[in-house]
């Protein structure tokens, strides 16, 4: 690999790492504030101006909290679990194109994507499902029944919803003709083309709905937060975790939410594309495009929170029922219809 590219990617990775951490941190702050606004409250306001230092206070506290490992637990697995959760959630960001390619005046192009893998979607789905290993190992190693319940719930939920999610994404793959995220985003260029929306959310509303619901479930967000649901399982898989290990779990949850929002924005809402983007080029295009992408991400994070603070949660069997008996058939039917329409429009049947 030539050294210039290496440095370029290294910088990108570091920036991405920092941004992911920063966004995850401030998502916790946003979550608290959003909850407060929905509930006619103020939310954190004593740590720094408007409570802006709240995430730092939480982090600082957790770092200096007693690092406790329960006597009956499997120590290595207990320690390793939050690490897995954290690592997996961060690594998925690698294949997402964070902005339009930057074309410098010298003709050199810099891609704002760490790795343009041609199976980007598979990569994301694969890694996201590894994420549940962190939860499972953590829940199992704690040697606590509530944790175990949380872990089992999380893993079966992950498997069930992964399926519907995958099937709903296949429609997008069929329409764009590629599994690379960059290609999918590029195929949604602009906003309006040939008298029709380019964004897949409008072309495939059902696929979007299914994907969105599944994304909620994959992130263990309400109304699918059965793995930790406070009123039943106390803390679920992280019941026995304290200090920074708990911090890692919470961090992973928020990073997951960030990545999920990014994937939704990229797959269904055109990623960095925005209406009238053809009038810009060079630095301006990259900056605005990236800004638009992050605005979309923040919006979806907000929607995640909005749903969490509005809806009651499912019961475990009802969750399975919804996944297997409703979403998967619906996704399959949607896939079939899409396939037929594509086949007709490509003229396969006229031969």
């Amino acid at each position, binding site marked *: 690999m030539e050294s210039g590219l290496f440095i370029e990617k290294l910088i990108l990775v570091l920036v991405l790492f920092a941004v992911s951490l920063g966004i995850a941190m401030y998502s916790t702050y946003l979550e608290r504030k959003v909850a407060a606004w*929905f509930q006619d409250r103020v939310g954190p306001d004593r740590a720094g101006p408007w409570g802006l230092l709240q995430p730092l206070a939480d982090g600082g506290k957790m770092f200096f909290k007693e690092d406790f490992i329960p006597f009956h637990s499997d120590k290595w697995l207990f320690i390793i679990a939050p690490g897995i959760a954290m690592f997996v959630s961060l690594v998925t960001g690698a294949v997402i194109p964070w902005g339009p390619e930057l074309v410098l005046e010298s003709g050199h192009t810099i891609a704002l994507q760490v790795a343009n893998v041609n199976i980007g979607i598979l990569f994301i789905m694969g890694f996201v499902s590894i994420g549940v290993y962190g939860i499972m190992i953590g829940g199992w190693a704690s040697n606590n029944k509530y944790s175990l319940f949380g872990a089992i719930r999380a893993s079966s939920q992950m498997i069930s919803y992964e399926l519907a999610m995958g099937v709903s994404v296949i429609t997008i793959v069929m329409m764009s003709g590629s599994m690379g995220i960059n290609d999918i985003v590029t195929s949604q260029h602009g906003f309006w083309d040939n008298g029709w929306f380019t964004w897949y959310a409008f072309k495939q509303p059902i696929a979007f709905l299914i994907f969105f619901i599944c994304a909620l479930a994959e992130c263990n967000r309400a109304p699918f937060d059965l793995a930790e649901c406070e009123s039943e399982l106390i803390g679920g898989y992280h019941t026995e975790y304290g200090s920074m290990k708990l911090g890692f779990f919470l961090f992973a949850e928020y990073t997951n939410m960030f990545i999920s929002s990014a994937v939704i924005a990229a797959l269904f809402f055109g990623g960095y594309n925005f209406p009238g983007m053809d009038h810009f080029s060079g630095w301006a295009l990259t900056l605005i495009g990236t800004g638009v992408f992050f605005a979309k991400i923040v919006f979806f994070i907000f929607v995640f929170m909005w749903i969490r603070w*509005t809806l009651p949660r499912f019961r475990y069997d009802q969750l399975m029922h919804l996944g297997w008996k409703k979403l998967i058939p619906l996704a399959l039917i949607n896939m079939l219809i899409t396939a037929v329409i594509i086949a007709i429009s490509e003229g396969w049947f006229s031969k």
Partner: protein
Amino acid sequence: MQSLTNRSKMVSDKKMTFLEKLYLPAIFGGMIITAKHLFRKNNTIKYPEEQRVFAPVYRGQHVLKRDEQGRENCTACGLCAVACPAEAITMVANERKKGEEHLYREEKYAEVYEINMLRCIFCGLCEEACPKEAIFLTDRIVKTDDNRPDFVYGKDRLVEDVNNRIDVSRRQLTGKRKEK
């Protein structure tokens, strides 16, 4: 079972309409309700910066009143201690000596008067029991503390300061004493 009265009415309807079965209308309806609150002014009282106004009859920290001439009203009759369900009041009575008329209104006075604020349940029965209008509960709240013995409030913290009177006139008028 047969109906006992003619007033009963079935209120629980468990049949869902088709729309309700779709989840979405109720979900969006709920989200609209919460979204409305997003733009509503918050309802929080930012204690300690802002303070809520307590009702005039609020039952907070006690005060031992002095009369207009600055003499203690309490005559150590012990009714408040008897009336206290938490047994939080203790007192030691003493005879007023010559030359102390400016300090104590009655011939007997409480040499020691202690209320254990951790025991006290702020029921207001002592105030009701007092025949001399000496003890009142006020709309001040008792301070928190980290040392348990400090919660036994003696006369130093209960008797009002001559120069810094605590106004209880409003609660005196509500029912316990009619305006002339």
